[in-house]
């Protein structure tokens, strides 16, 4: 499945793009493909095999915890949004 990953501002210096198209049958596959393409993301998103607790991943509008987690299957054209915590107010 070909899906779009929306890249938040905090990670754009690594990807150089605001969105990235990847292939994957599940959230886990898509994220691993994403990280393989940009290895510097590994430490920002994952702690070992697990997503860091302050990184939220959404499939379309729904957080993946309320779907099937990282096993959630994907369909062509799905949009994955990575939402890292933002503590700043300017």
């Amino acid at each position: 499945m070909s899906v779009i990953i929306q890249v938040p501002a905090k990670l754009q210096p690594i990807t150089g793009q605001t969105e990235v198209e990847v292939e994957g049958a599940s959230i886990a596959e898509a994220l691993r493909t994403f990280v393989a393409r940009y290895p510097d993301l590994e430490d920002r998103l994952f702690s070992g095999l697990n997503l860091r607790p302050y990184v939220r991943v959404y499939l379309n509008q729904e957080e993946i915890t309320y779907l099937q987690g990282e096993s959630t299957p994907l369909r062509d054209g799905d949009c994955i949004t990575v939402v890292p915590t933002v503590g700043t107010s300017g």
Partner: protein
Amino acid sequence: MNPLIDSLPQDLSKEEIERYSRHLILPEVGLEGQRRLRNASILLIGAGGLGSPLAMYLSAAGIGKLGIVDSDVVDASNLQRQVIHHSEDVGKPKIHSARRNIKGINPHVEVETYDTYLSSANALELIRPYDLVIDGTDNFPTRYCVNDACVLLGKPNIYGSIFRFEGQASVFWAEHGPCYRCLYPEPPAPGLVPSCAEGGVLGILPGIIGCIQATEAIKLVLGQGDALLGRLLLFDALRMEFRELKLRKDPKCPVCGENPTLTELIDYEQFCGIPQAKAAEAQGDHITAEQLRDELAAGIQLTLLDVREPYEWEIGQLPDSLEMPLGDVPGRFDELNPEDAIVVYCRSGMRSRNAQLFLQDQGFKRVRNLSGGILDWAAKIDASIPRY
């Protein structure tokens, strides 16, 4: 949703009717709604990027009482976005310029200022007298403290945050939806998430996000429309796009879940790992700006490694330093000699600490971190380098 605030019985004065006439002719506000606004009290945590538009628009709208918690003074680098503070306010407490400008916009507003840092020692006492809280803080310990205090006191907490060209906003209110901890159960490790001071922010962005927060506050007071409860609004200024994500209440949330384990405020600095990070920094080899000046003057051979981004490098740099942005270090560290004495620096010392740790892991034995970064160098040694 029912209005948060009761309507006071006394009528508006002639001057108030003229001032608020564009509100009064809105059926959703009217005289009764305007009296609700006048009877409302709102506490703003922070008088910075978000706090500026919040204070200005909420006072113009006729909110009866605004409280402002901030212990900072105005810095020249604030003026690009913190529009409640003016050039002549640099070096003075933010709460002074905030109060002056609120009173200038609307003398009917009662302004209470608190020249303090919100913490678990004072949060409940500060928040309790107010009807709702708007979070415009710039650090994680205060965000978690504000959240927990609002949950414990049953107050709505209107959230906003900004970074570079992106912003987030939501309404957290445990009695009606999720809280901040439902979204982010744990804070990131210090230094892993850059601040606006490190990453930059479009000056207009806090205006947009702050106005969204102010809009939500007024809707809650009036009981009009659909509150941003259970929804996280994402704004991207470069795409000029708003997106919305669903937020759910976490039944296991330690503060607002079904079996809360957090029933009083905690040490939020500790929770966010701040003392541990400071201790780690103190333990690591570091060099002060004065020591570096002395070593350079003595002709000691040093490699100065600048791990800031190229656009920061353009603002100013230490003499004869090597430019290698933090993200490039893992791919370029073989340009350095592991036997050399290296001093790593960034803007304030946080990113360079991470670079130092990385290089030490690669076997570099003589890497020191410049304490306080180039900002400290500019303040103590070379005033010709701009602070940013």
